[in-house]
């Protein structure tokens, strides 16, 4: 009875990532894209035409990460204009911050855009309630992964709660289906002030592939202003961890 456990323990070893800042993702990972202006725009126009969510525009040359599915097709069609790096630091406190232009070398994170009470109240500890509203379960699984033995977000005093009553804020995933709109509103209302709102995943940021769908109801965003936008299809656990720590002022973006 004890031997099999020892075997599991020995094989498992120690897998926690000691220093999350030192993490570099595989070269294949499609993270923050870099855009380069070229006089000749044929490639960029073809890339804009095939972009599945209209995230990429040729004139002016921009890529809206809030709509991007990171499929990488634009980089294949217009390799001189777009290149995906493996940089996962792509969260932004503002929706406009997710729109990248030619020459941008990082997703800007202006501390001035963060409400002061967020850092005052939640810097040391932050508990969040997650609401899946029409997502495809991939963002939800990545959020679960942030707490696992590898990433261990709990070490920063950040985690998820079962009840909105115990939470300091809400994380939304999915494009907000009409059938979930009311439940999301009720859940958000149940969280005591002050509270934060995080939109996690490209579908949450813009509706993604379902932005035009009649089954989606995004009026929630007309009355509530998110504090953090985290793109990705799905959002990588490192993007989520980096985004929250930067929001709380425990990490700086260069």
């Amino acid at each position: 009875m004890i031997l099999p456990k020892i075997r599991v323990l020995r094989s498992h070893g120690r897998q926690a990532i000691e220093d999350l800042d030192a993490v570099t993702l595989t070269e294949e990972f499609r993270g923050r894209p870099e855009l380069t202006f070229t006089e000749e725009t044929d490639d960029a126009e073809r890339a804009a035409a095939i972009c599945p969510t209209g995230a990429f525009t040729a004139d002016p040359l921009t890529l809206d990460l809030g709509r991007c599915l990171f499929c990488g097709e634009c980089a294949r069609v217009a390799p001189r204009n777009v290149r995906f790096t493996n940089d996962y630091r792509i969260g932004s406190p503002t929706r406009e911050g997710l729109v990248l232009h030619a020459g941008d070398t990082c997703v800007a994170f202006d501390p001035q855009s963060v409400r002061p009470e967020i850092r005052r109240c939640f810097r040391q500890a932050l508990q969040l309630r997650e609401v899946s509203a029409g997502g495809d379960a991939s963002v939800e699984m990545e959020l679960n992964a942030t707490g696992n033995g590898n990433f261990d977000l709990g070490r920063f005093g950040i985690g998820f709660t079962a009840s909105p009553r115990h939470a300091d804020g809400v994380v939304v995933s999915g494009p907000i289906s009409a059938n979930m709109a009311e439940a999301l509103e009720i859940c958000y209302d149940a969280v005591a002030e002050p509270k934060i709102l995080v939109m996690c995943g490209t579908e949450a940021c813009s509706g993604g592939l379902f932005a035009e769908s009649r089954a989606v109801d995004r009026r929630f965003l007309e009355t509530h202003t998110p504090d953090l936008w985290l793109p990705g299809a799905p959002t990588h656990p490192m993007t989520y961890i980096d985004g929250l720590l930067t929001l709380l002022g425990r990490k700086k973006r260069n």
Partner: protein
Amino acid sequence: MNYLVTDNTSGALRLEEIPEIPYATFYELMHTWLADERHHVAHYFALPSDDRMRFYCLVLDDAEGKILVTSHAMGYYDETHLPSLTALHPQMHPFEREIAERYGIRFDGQPWPKPLRFPFDRYDRQSSIDNYPFYTMAGKTLHEVNVGPIHAGIIEPGAFRFICNGEQVLHLEIALGYQHRGVEAAFTATENRLRQMCLAEAIAGDSAVAHATAFAEAIEKLTGRERPAQLDRERAVALELERMAMQIADTGALSMDTGYQLGQVACEALRTMTINTTQAWCGNRFGKGLIRPHGTDHPLTPAKSAMIRQNVREIARRYDEVRRDIESSPTLLARFEQCGVVPREEMRRIGGVGQAARASGLARDIRATHPWGSYGKCLHHESVVETSGDVMARLEVRSREVAQSARYIDRLLEIYERKYGKLENPCGTPDYTTSLTPSSLAFGMVEGWRGETCHVVLTDAEGRLAACRIKDPSLHNWMALALAVRGEGISDFPICNKSFNLSYCGHDL
């Protein structure tokens, strides 16, 4: 002839070739077919065009490895009452409910005439997910427990209503639809093939490869272009990697719900290893971007192949240690064995598929019965079947499939290394511009980790996508979960639920 016989590898069917029979004949035909356990319904849907409605039905014949396709039709002004098949064969229930909800067709004698997913284009706009007509029972000793739509963990929404006698569950009803985001309509709203591929990947994130493969295969049948054998093999590697990742993840989830932290932590780490392997191959932990029509953007290289083989071998070895530990822990076995039993006959009647059906002794597995691509060629698949139908059986199926998938991946990559190691990209590059055969129907049918995943794609006279009808295996299997918890203590619901791990988004679309 009342129906057309095809298989999982032949091309698209012309719509006019598909027999259109009177409903009475269809009813008799279905009744005879479904009475035999070798048949089960794979898809049944209605499609309006002009002033008539045509109903297509795909039935799988497991014994012969064939797919039987038939249809019936009705005019817009015709009497809309059809005798329900659900009353005879409960496996028809989600399909009849979907047709009734969407188009207002009434099925007479339907024993469970309830909404399925509250789609935005439903016939009765007065119906709302907020007042789903839950079944109730009166009794002084009974109470109801409502869970959801938002659950305690980070999972998708769905409303569960338990009727309990003390701790014992008498009845569970599951109301879904919260995840409905209009997937099927989105497919036909665009002509951008890449966008359609991305949509297929977004149907259920944990089955992104299965759904993307099903859609890509349907599209490839409509273009009539042959696939290189290596492309089939790479898709099989991706599919088996996805299967390994999810079977391991669910072992971890079952461990978590029984307080077995060692297994939970070990499985979470092993799942991380598996999906990081997929990420190192294609840049996405869920395999999004890997499956594309006619080719691939992420062909294997000798280095990647070696990396995958090495990781998979290590994962399988370590996972086997967890399995051994579970099997030698009486406290875990006491929770898993004899819990959440779905007997074989019940599983057959509700039309269960995939790993849940195999745990109840029903060998439903598209890889074995209706092989496509590499299955049946370089892989001779034998289904993993358990008979006890309890949580333990579902866990056993998972753990045996992890070992099986690891062997398959190794075999496929060995072939790659031997044959193509030095070639640039034997799979070809994706093509999003191919034209589709007009007025045709094609389906892609794939055994994902949950079970049979089916995409039926229809084209109009101009060769545009007229409809994409998607069936996630969860559509069949949600009823199995409701049956599994009957008679169990309500505290065993979490492990019953995790042992199935069904998809909400794949059901709601």
